């Protein structure tokens, strides 16, 4: 499948309609999810503030998922020197950073009523924060290298290094957490989560995922088009 679309022409023609369609689907899902999350009964323990979870948790999940996508794309662009894969990686990074920022923001918004603090050195929080730094580093490197091909390879290398490190960071932070019990009383979510909350959560998660793929495809297409345009103008300029 991936190799089928590896050829930019085929990719462009195949995905012309995919983006908008997914986008519409995402819109519907979001609407349903949000409606559900507001009609869901307030949590006996967290009260109304539990509704933040429907925005927050999927965002946090996406933060990790998108980084996986970024790593995958980078792998292909590095091994097969594939322009399309690089375009995909380039397109994915800002989206992932966005989801991560959303998770952090909503998370600390949630933490205020729950823990009485904007920030708590909880394992999961910390690892997401560090993940956010990974995204920032990647974006910064992209921005700082102007030669297209070199930027592609360098940032791909960085993304893969990061991919290896994400789980390590996750693990290390959890290990650290077992050493020092965090100041938080509230253990994040856990399996003890009511169905009435789980359903909207799942739908929101699905909506986020679809939305991501819609945006990803659109951004990748624009990336491909942009590079083509550059090549054209250069050819018109007679290579000078």
């Amino acid at each position, binding site marked *: 499948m991936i190799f089928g679309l590896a050829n930019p022409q085929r990719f462009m023609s195949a995905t012309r309609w995919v983006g908008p369609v997914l986008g519409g689907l995402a819109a519907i899902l979001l609407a349903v999810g949000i409606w559900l999350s507001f009609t869901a009964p307030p949590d006996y323990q967290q009260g109304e503030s539990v509704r933040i979870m429907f925005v927050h948790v999927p965002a946090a999940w996406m933060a990790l998922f998108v980084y996986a996508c970024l790593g995958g794309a980078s792998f292909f662009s590095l091994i097969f020197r594939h322009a399309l894969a690089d375009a995909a990686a380039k397109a994915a990074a800002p989206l992932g950073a966005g989801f991560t920022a959303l998770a952090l923001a909503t998370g600390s918004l949630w933490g205020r009523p729950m823990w009485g603090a904007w920030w708590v050195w909880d394992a999961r929080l910390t690892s997401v924060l560090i993940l956010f730094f990974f995204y920032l580093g990647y974006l910064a490197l992209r921005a700082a290298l102007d*030669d*297209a091909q070199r930027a592609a390879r360098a940032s791909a290398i960085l993304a893969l290094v990061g991919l290896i490190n994400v789980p390590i960071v996750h693990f290390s932070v959890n290990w650290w957490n077992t050493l020092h019990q965090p100041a938080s009383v509230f253990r994040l979510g856990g399996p003890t989560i009511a169905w009435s909350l789980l359903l909207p959560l799942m739908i929101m998660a699905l909506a986020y995922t679809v939305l991501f793929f819609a945006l990803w495809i659109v951004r990748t297409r624009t990336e491909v088009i942009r590079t083509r345009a*550059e*090549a054209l103008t*250069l050819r018109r300029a007679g*290579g*000078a």
Partner: protein
Amino acid sequence: MLTGLAVENLSLARGHRTLFEGLSLVLEPGELLSLTGANGAGKTSLLRAAAGFIRPQSGTIRFEGQDADDARAEALHYLGHQDGLKPARTAWEELCFQAEWCGGSRDSARAAAQRLALEPLLDLEIRKLSAGQRRRVALARLISAPRPLWLLDEPMAPLDAERRSVFGTVMAEHLSGGGMILAAVHDPLPLAGRALQIGGPA
């Protein structure tokens, strides 16, 4: 037995610009080929491609029938516009390092220094050397560690007349020993050899 360097319709690009297309050349053992051309024509780029640093847009660069690989890396000397000498270290330290790193020995380094009349300068730090003296330290590497293919970028520019003739004979010996030299120059070298003009925008 060496079969030399063969470049077949090579095209190179830097940044977004194509420098040249469909360039072919052959360099056989004992041959000197000097590259001429305007500033920015792509001489240095060609040398770097031949050294295996730059991967061409299209076309092939084969040495001993091989594409760029580790074997080639050890079969050539590349001396660019910059010599990579460290200002804070002495000429002798740098010369020794370069010689040993390229497979030579301290003795060969010493011999090379003699050949280029560097002994009186060996204890000076690189930053204290004059331009020509510094260039000679860089050139000494070529002698101190024998390798068949020399890729030289304006090797003679800062040398005085006497040193130019000396290094001319050095190059001649290298050629007569079956070596190959590909040199980018603006002023013709004091040796017989073919010349190739690289066209392209300035």
